């Protein structure tokens, strides 16, 4: 717990990436199981955005790790 702030920031990035990916996945499942509607389209968009954001955050975390 007493790790350096930079290390905890990077841990945070990994966690945010995992969290976003999981939430995106759940929206994806809800879209796949839901009846065709505008809501389903919204869920698909949200799932894509969440997973893209997860990818970007993971990329940032990996870059920061390489630099350190």
């Amino acid at each position, binding site marked *: 717990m007493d790790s350096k702030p930079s290390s905890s920031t990077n841990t945070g990035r990994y966690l945010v990436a995992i969290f976003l990916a999981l939430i995106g996945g759940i929206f994806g499942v*809800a879209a796949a199981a839901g009846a065709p509607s505008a809501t389903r389209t919204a869920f698909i968009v949200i799932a894509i955005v969440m997973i893209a954001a997860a990818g970007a955050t993971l990329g940032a975390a990996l870059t920061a790790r390489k630099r350190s």
Partner: protein
Amino acid sequence: MVPLSDRDRAFTLTGILLAMFLAALDQTIVATALPKIVADLGGLERYAWVFTAYLVGSTVLVPIYGKLADMFSRRAIELWAISVFLAGSFLSGLSGEFGELPLLGDAMNQLIVFRALQGLGAAGLLGLAFIIIADLFPPSERGKYQGLTGGVFGIASVIGPLIGGLLTDHGGAIIPGIAGWRWVFYVNLPFGILALIFVITRMPALLPHGEKGRLDALSVVLLVGGLVPLVLGLQLDKTAHPWGAPLTIALLAGGVVLTALFVLRSLRVPNPVLDMRLFSNRVFSTSNLAGFFVGAAFLSIVAFLPLFMVNVVGVSATSAGLSLVPLSLGVVFGSIVSGQIVSRVGHYRALLLIGGFILLVGVFLLSRMDFDIPFWQVAVYMAVAGLGLGPSLPLLTLAVQNAVDVRKVGQATSAVQFFRQIGGLFGTALLGTVLTTSLLANIALNMPAGLGSPPAAVGGSAAGVSSAGTAAVAAQVDEAFAARYRSLSAAIDGGDDAALAAQLTAMGLPEQARAGITAAYERAKGDAQATAALLTNLKSELDAQAQTVIGEVTLGVRKAFASAVTRVYFIAIFIVLVGWLVTWFIPEVPLRKTNAQATEGVLTGGD
């Protein structure tokens, strides 16, 4: 430092559990009282805010109470939280008694504001119970008492609607002149005051060590500023404001941006509301992640099962709360027993995994329910799901408290509570939307062929159906046929040929039936006895038709609900599965056998 007698410990525990029970109860108690409240106070278009105001208050301040508990006497914070909660309860009960008030406006506005005040107190009561137990008992013993806490929380969440219904229906007899629904709020006063007495007379000050210093005001502003729109965005009625609506997007995006700024600020200040370095601790981060998904599953099960019980199984709306008792018993049993076991064996991870697996089985069973399922079978499924939910309530908190620096137990504990609550909001928002869209599609599919349009109670919005229930749908169909008879009767009695022809056409009867009725009408013209006989025949014919349509519509609604609710639980399987998989990554840290580290400088004699 003074030793705490077993007696004082017991009274303190009773006081905080009682206070926590009231706070958890108030999350759901208003649901069954709301129709009467709206009938008394008006403001139907704002009724949803009665829930939302409480929810926002009781969620947003959780992390701040945790931080304050690390900085000041925990007894002082608990007293403050109980007092605010009681003031909010009393004022909520008084809403509208003095007419329109300056600044607060009409009765419904007053209730919304006072419910928010109640929520601000409840935020402290929910988190502080776990924090204070951490002071009173070492981790190796704590499981037993955290188990009780989980049980109390589980019971309160589930029986809220039952108590709300009972007080609303029968509370009016307690003191003549005070409406029953006001007791939904006043009932907190005697129990809250009792909790207050226990805390004042028996609880030590519980002064923390090491977390002095000023609370960073900007962090608080960013946290509250971020969480309020986030919670509101999740809570918005998604039939009126779908996920893609500008208001929903603006609230969620604004909330995420301000929360991100809060995180950045917390990384830079010396005394943040939530120390972000806690997330480097794997027990803390994985437990909170698992707690988020378990929270989503818990609230979703509690929120959607009453709809199934009322609209599919056919229990009355007022006894819907009672029908959830098997779920409640499962949660209580799972929570208490897992707490006892962990205190004996000293390991929490295996119990969390077993609980998660049982929950997975329970939700899978719930997702397999059909429209003709008997009550006993739903009860068994509920009990299994409850049994699986039980261990997660106390054990995730215990795991976190055992793994973090004792100086940060307050903020760490409140983080578990906070992530569980936010998970619940996320789950109900997501699955509520799935329920609504599925229901509307299924109702269209399941309406009897030839029914021009579904009765109003099943058209419009799913929310309408949810609250109406199949009994209300049947009543509407009955009324539609009665209205039809009144129109026909008026046309026949008045000898109005055109009106009769128009009515028969509007009824959509086959040509042959129309011709038959018209011929009978022509024959009966001017003959009062024949007209009366014709009307009697028509009445019995329409009554028979109404019963057939009611049977078909009710069956259609039941099928539609069964299909929509089970689809929701099907998605919930994935939410539970994610939580369970995350649980595998929670490290097992041996439970500390003494509380020396935790209580040093904490259990002191006075403020």
